[in-house]
């Protein structure tokens, strides 16, 4: 009996440890974005884009930008596939804006996708901004297992660093309106 009880306690602990991921709420507008870790990109152009150097891994707080747009996607998700050209358009729009192009960065995190799968997505849609693999779903868990595509916009500067100014599931709709909205919300404009 005692053994069963001990076993149960151990299981209960395992459950609570496990569920602390699943039950973790998705960070909302106004919250601080968790300082997640990603594997370092090997592409020099991407390192330059993000203001990073070195190998191994990095924390998103190290990305040099005033505003970070982070998309959680999956190559297997039809909505994310439909969204890809829209996000590409957003990326192009930002690049054309002299006042914004050095302040805003976009990254994508492929929930459950291995590097091979992320590459397929990148090649299919000719995506120019950095995409990262989250094969073990660790990032996905730390943002409350959101449905995809999910967009976070994180204000990296100011009094309260890494404050979320946008946290929503689904399409960003019109890229120009989206860009106007987030630059206004963050005080970049």
């Amino acid at each position, binding site marked *: *009996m005692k053994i*069963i*009880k001990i*076993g*149960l306690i151990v*299981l*209960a602990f*395992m*459950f609570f440890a*496990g*569920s602390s991921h*699943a039950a973790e709420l998705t960070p909302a507008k106004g919250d601080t974005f968790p300082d997640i870790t990603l594997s370092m990109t090997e592409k020099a152009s991407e390192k330059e884009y993000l203001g990073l150097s070195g190998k191994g891994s990095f924390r998103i707080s190290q990305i040099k930008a005033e505003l970070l747009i982070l998309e959680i996607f*999956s*190559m*297997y*998700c*039809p*909505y*994310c*596939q*439909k969204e890809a050209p829209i996000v590409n358009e957003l990326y192009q729009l930002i690049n054309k804006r002299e006042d914004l192009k050095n302040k805003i960065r976009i990254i994508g995190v492929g*929930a*459950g996708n*291995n590097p*091979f*799968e992320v590459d*397929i*997505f990148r*090649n*299919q849609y000719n995506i120019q901004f950095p995409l990262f693999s989250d094969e073990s*779903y660790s990032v*996905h868990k730390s943002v409350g*297992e959101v*449905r*995809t*595509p*999910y967009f976070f916009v994180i204000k990296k500067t100011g009094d309260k660093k890494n404050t979320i100014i946008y946290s929503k*599931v*689904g399409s960003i709709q019109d890229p120009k309106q989206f860009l106007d909205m987030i630059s206004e919300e963050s005080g970049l404009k």
Partner: protein
Amino acid sequence: MFSKNHFYFYVLAGILALLYSSTIAYGASEQFKGKIYNTGMLKPVDSKTKLKPGMKAPDFTLPSVSGEKISLSNFLGKKNVVISFVPAAWTPVCSDQWPGYNIAKSLFEKNAAVLIGITVDNIPTLFTWTKEMGELWFPVLSDFYPHGSVAKKYGVLRSSGTTERALFVIDKKGIIRYIDVHDINKRPGLETLMKELEKLEK
């Protein structure tokens, strides 16, 4: 004492069930929100195929969603063929496996391979379900009537009447080169499939 033991058993089962259910929703697409029937965790494999790599692939003819009838023998001497059986429309995992294949067309073409999707659902169901995935570049066939007859030939019909989540790679000579009767609850890796295709004559 006996009832107490039972009590612990139920608590334990409950905890395990909760643990399981919390792992199912991984990476779900917003598109299918509210439209997917949650099957829960199923027995990983529920059939036994007699087919083995090296054997001749059984021929079949089935109707496709686009209206034409497709036979495996159509591709004999022309293309390598990947047959992807998925268990059922509107279920988890299946609803994202084919959208993934849908953006990997060039990888199939590179290996002179065509992809054929098969389920035991009827054509109207497959029509609506695949439409939700967007435009698919590969044919989707209905093994609805006589129910699951092709799945049976390939030894992947489950006792519930759905099929396994199974991949068959067949070369241009009609010989089976690779079989993956996958855990029905998991998506087979695309990378593994592509490595198998690369081994074939182009």
